[in-house]
């Protein structure tokens, strides 16, 4: 799979209802690349991810995944947030275990996968704790662990650093970089933070005004488009995305 196209978009249009959010997107992600998707709120970063994940059908054009990912067993997904019934009793281990759905693992394999994912996310000491007893940052790490438990070859993270303090943010980025370097995991990472992208990305996709400008990180970040995307700001801004 090394070097193969993992995600291929050609003339892709995505949107909600009658409103197209992205149009005419041509974009190729190859195995082992570490893509950071940058753009303003409402620019279409999350829409593009939803298309990759199969949650949003293409309204025009084509979006294809590598055949090994067609059954989605090796895709890990970290959503912006995970909201469900807060009165439900659920431990960190059970929450992460939900990520093994569809993998067809036996009991021992499941335990091994869980232990590894919890250790990766530095949650092994909290596995028996209630999910609701965790801090915001710890819950974010539990979401990451739930994605990693699938041992993904494509890891998709939608603003995963939102609730993390700088130390936790750094730890998460180091983990993602290590998975990418050591295991060849392809990464799609949505963020508002240009500084993070310039430090950690091999490739950058600027998603704004319904289009995508994509390429190697140094090339894209050196272009004048950043000012057009974020205006005069520093490119770091909180909030939800379309």
């Amino acid at each position, binding site marked *: 799979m090394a070097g193969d196209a993992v995600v291929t978009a050609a003339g892709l249009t995505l949107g*909600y209802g009658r409103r197209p959010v992205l149009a005419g997107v041509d974009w190729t992600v190859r195995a082992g690349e570490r893509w950071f998707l940058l753009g303003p709120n409402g620019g279409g970063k999350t829409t593009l991810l939803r298309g990759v994940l199969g949650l949003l059908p293409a309204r025009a054009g084509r979006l294809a995944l590598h055949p090994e990912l067609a059954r989605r067993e090796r895709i890990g997904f970290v959503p912006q947030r995970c909201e469900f019934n807060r009165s439900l009793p659920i431990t960190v281990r059970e929450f992460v275990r939900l990520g093994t*759905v569809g993998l067809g693992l036996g009991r021992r394999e499941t335990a091994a996968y869980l232990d590894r994912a919890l250790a990766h996310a530095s949650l092994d000491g909290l596995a028996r704790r209630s999910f609701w007893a965790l801090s915001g940052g710890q819950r974010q790490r539990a979401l990451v662990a739930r994605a990693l438990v699938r041992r993904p070859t494509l890891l998709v993270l939608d603003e995963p650093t939102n609730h993390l303090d700088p130390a936790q943010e750094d730890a998460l980025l180091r983990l993602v970089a290590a998975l990418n370097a050591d295991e060849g995991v392809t990464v799609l990472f949505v963020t508002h933070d240009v500084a993070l992208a310039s430090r950690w990305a091999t490739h950058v996709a600027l998603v704004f005004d319904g289009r995508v400008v994509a390429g190697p990180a140094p090339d894209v970040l050196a272009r004048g488009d950043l000012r057009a995307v974020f205006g005069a700001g520093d490119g770091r801004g909180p909030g939800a995305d379309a």
Partner: protein
Amino acid sequence: MIAEFLGSWALFQHTYLAGWLIAALLGLVGVLVVARDQIFLGAAVAQASSLGVAVGMVAGGWLAPRWPVFESDAFLSAAAVVAAVVAALVTSAGGAPGGESHEARTGWVFLLSASVAILALAHSPHGLEEIHRLVVSTIIGATPADVAVFGALAAASGAALARLHRPVLLVALDPEMAAAVGLRAGRWTAALSVWLGLVLGLSIRAAGILYGFGCLVLPALVARNVCREVAPMFVVAPAVALGATVVAFVVAHHRDLPPGQTSVALLCVLVAASRLRRRGGAA
């Protein structure tokens, strides 16, 4: 008291067995309703099955002179199930951005069902009596066929959940993640709605709204209060439902009380007690 209860076994065994099987079955299904925090959905679907019975009785009044099958108990049960399934599908379809919320749809289904069921039978004393029987819940009169049907449903539901409870939970708790890992979340949700409607529609027809709704949500609430994880709730909730209804039926027989109401009252006490225990544990 127990010997006295056992003495009534020959006469009421089908009532007891059907009531216990319904309780265990609904206790199992109720875990998903409680997990999704859609408790009122259970009331709306239960109420919708009474609308199905009402519509079935009206339709039977028109059609039975030519086709006697429309006057049968099986036809009314089928009408109750169809209405319950439709209600479950309508309520589960809510919640899309910009659309009606689950709560709004659930309230609409409940109020429509409660009002139209009475309106449809307003001039039929027999029909109103039937609706009243469903509302107050009486499980006296269950047949061997009821026992067989609910036994089969309980066994099938238990076997399906033993194998599929994790994907079912993922779809119920986080449908977006479920779709991202390749589950067809829409189809799973529709299948769960059909299952809920089928089970609840048949149960309401046999045991009434109060008993059905009570056994659907109360054992799952007890299980939620005593369990540390969701998966054990699928065992604890039916066990609580079964245990509570066995005790309630014995007490009801001894004190000459209606067994459905006795069961629901006992389950309400268990919910409160388990809540206190949970708060004590948290403190």
